[in-house]
């Protein structure tokens, strides 16, 4: 708990710096929102031509897209700083973090807080509100819980995947491209029904890199509709468990990776 307070204080010193330049902050947020809205436009254009995508109607795809977008924005806000990990390693600046009585990952996370990344979540939230207003989801207590919990659980899963892929940087300094394939690639793979992908990618998303649990399975529960692929019913409520497992795996991989740190030679 004490550590949390310390991290909050470090974070506070970061945020103040950003809000000191309000115009630049507003433009950055707008840029992020436009990036996310871009994908929204793609979905709308596709549905102008077809009535269903992988067995899902337009509003159903938009629900998945919205949940994934909010999750992605939150995850990006939390662990997006890991993008800078190769620089920390290459320059040896990581030494400084290791010489402090705090965990390295929390220090990296709080080294910067890019509030503009919430621009993505904002677009997702607007689309989610629109889908809910259209009455596609039954207003039950369970669904309310799912709608609040899914973005948090989803952000946890995405965050864990990023931590694992960024750990590669400890072995391969130029591992950034590989890591980005998973981090930014996950905006695509989480935002659509997995039924549109080929069987191998589908299996990958269900069992190896659990992207399907970010939005697809929770959306099935919210829409109360059968899985077009006939996967077990219980999977749609399994996201929290998957998140816990993903965090444990990520912690193990990260711990191993930090022990493998080689320094920068001076």
């Amino acid at each position, binding site marked *: 708990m004490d550590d949390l307070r310390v991290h909050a*204080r470090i974070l506070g*010193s970061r945020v103040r710096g950003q809000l000191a330049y309000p115009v630049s902050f507003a433009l950055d947020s707008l840029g992020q929102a436009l990036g996310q809205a871009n994908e929204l436009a793609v979905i709308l254009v596709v549905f102008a031509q077809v009535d269903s995508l992988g067995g899902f109607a337009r509003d159903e795809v938009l629900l998945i897209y919205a949940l994934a977008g909010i999750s992605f924005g939150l995850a990006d806000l939390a662990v997006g700083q890991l993008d800078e990990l190769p620089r920390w390693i290459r320059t*040896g600046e990581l030494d400084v973090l290791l010489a*402090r009585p705090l965990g390295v990952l929390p220090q990296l996370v709080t080294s910067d807080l890019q509030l503009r990344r919430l621009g993505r979540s904002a677009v997702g939230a607007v689309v989610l509100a629109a889908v809910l207003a259209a009455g596609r989801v039954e207003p039950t207590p369970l669904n309310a819980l799912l709608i609040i919990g899914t973005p948090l659980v989803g952000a946890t899963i995405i965050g864990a995947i990023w931590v694992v892929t960024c750990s590669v940087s400890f072995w391969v300094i130029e591992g950034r491209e590989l890591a980005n394939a998973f981090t930014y690639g996950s905006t695509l793979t989480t935002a659509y029904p997995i039924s549109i992908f080929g069987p191998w990618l589908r299996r990958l998303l269900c069992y190896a890199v659990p992207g399907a649990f970010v939005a697809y399975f929770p959306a099935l529960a919210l829409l109360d509709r059968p899985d077009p692929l006939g996967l077990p019913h219980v999977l749609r409520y399994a996201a929290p468990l998957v998140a816990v497992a993903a965090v444990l795996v990520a912690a193990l991989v990260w711990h191993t990776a930090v*022990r493998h*740190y080689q*320094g920068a030679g001076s």
Partner: protein
Amino acid sequence: MSAAETSAAETAVVETEGLRREFTVGRRRARRRVVAVSDVDLRITPGEAVGFLGPNGAGKSTTIKMLTGILVPSAGRLRVCDLDPTRQRRELARRLGVVFGQRSQLWWDLPLRDSFGLLGAIHRVPEPEHRARLERCVDVLELGPFLDVPVRQLSLGQRMRGELTAALLHGPRLLVLDEPTVGLDLVSKERLRAFLQEVNVVDGMTILLTTHDLPDVERLCRRVVVIDQGRVVADDAIDALHARSGGAREVVVELTQPAAPLHDLPGVRDVRVEADGLRQRLAFAPADTTAAALIAAVAARVELRDVTVVEPSIEDLVRTLYARG
């Protein structure tokens, strides 16, 4: 009266046995293992000030990083401040003060004062202690004029004084400094050395220091550990090292007229003639004669224009030791 003599039975601050670290370098087919540190046995007792010397790439920084828990050793036993640096890195960080000359532990965009505040919170230093330690550093290191300036606007000398303060705010048992004076001007170096000496002698803080600057060591350390190619090649009192390294000292005499080589002066081991005999370098061992006696002997023979006494560099010292070891 040295700390080493009185505290033989006392628990060591640093104790290593067979410490070793290998690195994988190169890519793909050119990949190979390089041994950076090998078989390092080191014991440092409370209150000691130890200079850790060696040429570039000798393994100084790698050893320091293993001692501070930054790098995990490939083999060997290691204890620092009664802790295992690998398993108890965070706990150890509370007992260590670390200064890296090459990189900063301060926040680039924050004023020094705010950086110190954050570090105080990170180390959970009670407010009165924090204030007392900060006040002392501000006083002795004269931080006052730039305490509210963002770190990125500080000069190197100002920043290093800030770094040293940052390392001392939590009252560490061991202060580890990796090339703290690199790039500093003479005045800044001297100020830093004087403060380190005070911290060591008055507060009894144990200091381990790597440097390229022999005066750093001569001012601060009674004991010197020399490392070369990953191995300890000497570990001794600094005076003993000077004696062992023999004719490393030099008197350089500038003459008013060219003269024949000044052979057969008492205590001179080697004569090198430059500028057609106008300048001559006389190598001698402090054990055989003094610089003053030698200069007097030269003055009796020829007319002198200028005289300088040259101290051996660390590189010279290491080369001499290594050639004999």
